[in-house]
């Protein structure tokens, strides 16, 4: 690690304007993340247009702040309403909501904020030491390795949509197919443009993302808009007792690194990290019977690990230009728009940007813990704002965001089409992340594939020519077998759970 670039980055991150963006991004992210059904990917997608007129460094800082702000926010609604903002906040409902029901909403919110904070900070340290070596390693990659790495990421994210792998593959392939629309960059051939000139540059993936995540999610939420429950919770004092801290201290410290490592893995992410954080904690606990009834450790552990994962997920994004999750895919899209090309060269060419971002994560986590504890009253009030008012606003933001992309109203129709498409994907239970990921890496993937094949004059043997590529190949195959393993583990766990249920019922 280079101390000089670190200090340079720190001074950039500490510029008042960047601190302002960190605070604004964190706050906005928290608010959107809090809305039931809307997660970090939606938050980043809807708020992307704000970044367009900014310089790239501030933009990436702002987006990162929105991202982890949404991670903090997601657990607010889990704890208070039992409706997680997104997958990674599900584990927070297990013990967070029972705590709130017992009148301990305040302590629950505080401990989750502090756990997120500590997890995030631990992960930033991990980032500090892991990112640069990984970037240097990735410098040695050729097109064949890149193609395989993208394949691994895609297959991992499909494999993680356990139980609906076929749907995951279909979603991924639709994404790849959408990515082929437009002029082929190697030969100049028009593909699938249906004669519409507007499509010759391809379909802007940000429109698809905004459509699927923002419009699609809102339309999906219409399904039960009239049944959404209203619960008023007294939050009380937002701090925790010494005893609660004592109980959560170790779970938080243990789960941080777990979450971080899971976040670095392609395809994994907050949801898996928080689940694993939770189950590991439960397995280690002396009082497993309290879990699910409002055990403070059961809230602290997943909160720490999911936030650590969100920082970890930035590593493959920045060092290799390969997003590991839906949200980081959205961020990659926005970064490309801004003219930043994440990848191994980013560290050499723009060290300032990278180190400013890393430092901003420290500051951002501090800012968020303050926002989440001091402003809890305000945040709870926002949570009380009727969804019926908020959803139209999200729709409008999506439209404005789309307009700022190309100043064309043709894109509004695309936005609506993809919104409806997203709705059907949700209704039919198709995972969305593979689609988005495939759409974003699709073009690169094809180019790398063709370059690799060209460089070996048409032979596919190049994909088996280096140690790295063979290892990636094996990992891809392993990741495809992963659902089988999970199935076995789940079976075991289910047996155990039903046994536990019987036990609690009889006792």
């Amino acid at each position, binding site marked *: 690690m280079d101390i000089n670039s670190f200090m340079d980055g720190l001074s950039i991150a500490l510029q008042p304007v960047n601190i302002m963006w960190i605070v604004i991004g964190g706050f906005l992210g928290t608010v959107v993340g809090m809305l039931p059904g809307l997660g970090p990917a939606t938050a980043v997608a809807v708020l992307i247009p704000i970044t367009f007129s900014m310089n790239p460094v501030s933009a990436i800082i702002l987006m990162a702040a929105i991202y982890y702000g949404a991670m903090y926010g997601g657990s607010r609604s889990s704890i208070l309403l039992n409706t997680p903002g997104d997958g990674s906040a599900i584990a927070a409902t297990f013990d967070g909501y029972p705590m709130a029901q017992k009148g301990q909403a305040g302590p629950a919110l505080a401990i989750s904020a502090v756990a997120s904070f500590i997890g995030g900070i631990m992960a930033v340290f991990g980032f500090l030491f892991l990112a640069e070596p990984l970037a240097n390693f990735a410098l040695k990659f050729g097109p064949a390795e890149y193609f395989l790495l993208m394949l691994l990421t895609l297959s991992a994210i499909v494999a993680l949509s356990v139980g609906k792998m076929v749907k995951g593959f279909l979603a991924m392939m639709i994404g790849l*197919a959408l990515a082929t629309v437009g002029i082929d960059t190697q030969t100049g051939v028009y593909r699938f443009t249906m004669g519409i000139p507007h499509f010759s540059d391809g379909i802007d993936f940000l429109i698809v993302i905004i459509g699927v995540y923002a419009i699609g999610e809102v339309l999906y939420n219409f399904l039960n*808009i009239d049944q959404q429950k209203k619960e008023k919770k007294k939050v009380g004092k937002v701090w925790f007792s010494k005893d609660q801290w004592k109980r959560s201290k170790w779970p938080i410290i243990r789960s941080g690194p777990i979450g971080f490592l899971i976040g670095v893995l392609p395809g994994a992410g907050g949801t898996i990290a928080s689940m694993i954080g939770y189950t590991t904690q439960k397995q280690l606990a002396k009082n497993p019977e309290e879990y699910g009834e409002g055990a403070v450790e059961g809230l602290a552990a997943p909160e720490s690990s999911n936030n650590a994962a969100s920082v970890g997920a930035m590593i493959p994004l920045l060092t290799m230009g390969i997003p590991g999750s839906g949200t980081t895919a959205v961020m990659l899209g926005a970064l490309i728009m801004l003219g930043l090309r994440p990848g191994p060269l980013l560290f050499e060419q723009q060290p300032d940007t990278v180190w400013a971002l890393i430092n901003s994560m420290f500051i951002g986590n501090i800012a968020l813990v303050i926002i989440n504890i001091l402003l809890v009253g305000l945040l709870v009030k926002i949570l009380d704002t009727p969804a019926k008012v908020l959803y139209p606003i999200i729709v409008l933001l999506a439209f404005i965001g789309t307009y*700022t992309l190309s100043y064309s109203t043709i894109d509004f129709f695309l936005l609506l089409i993809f919104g409806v498409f997203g709705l059907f994907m949700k209704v039919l239970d198709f995972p969305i992340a593979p689609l988005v990921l495939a759409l974003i890496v699709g073009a690169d993937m094809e180019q790398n594939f*063709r370059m690799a094949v060209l460089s070996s004059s048409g032979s596919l043997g190049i994909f088996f020519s280096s140690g790295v590529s063979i290892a990636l190949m094996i990992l891809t195959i392993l990741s495809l077998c992963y659902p089988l393993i999970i199935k076995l583990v789940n079976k075991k766990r289910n047996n155990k759970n039903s046994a536990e249920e019987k036990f609690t019922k009889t006792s």
Partner: protein
Amino acid sequence: MLILYSITFLIASFNLPKANLGNPNAPMYFPAGLSIFMLLFSLIYFIQELKNLDKDNEYIRQIITGRTPKLIGFTILFGVVYAFVFNILGFLVSTVLYLGALLFYINGRKKWLVNIVVTLSFSIISWYAFSELLGVSLP
């Protein structure tokens, strides 16, 4: 159930023309290979769904019952109208109309005061934020 059936069919049939499209030489291989896989997986999906045909998807029922289809339909319809009038009426007016229409429709007429306040304040704030602060030129 019928919807489920037709959508699976649609996905499957969508892939068929795709396989024939594309151009000779290099640009074709990737989409062609892709569409073969796509066809394969849609067939698997189709067969899977055939087995589950008797199971009712609760969400699909929700989507066609009650207020939901109207809500979704009108949101899209208003969106289409918005797209048409956006350049004619300008950002501010069309946004006020669209957001107002959405709010009155979704939130109900009884809460007219909230609707109007939210519509006006959001439209003006977003207009100010984007065109003045962020330098996005809006019609």
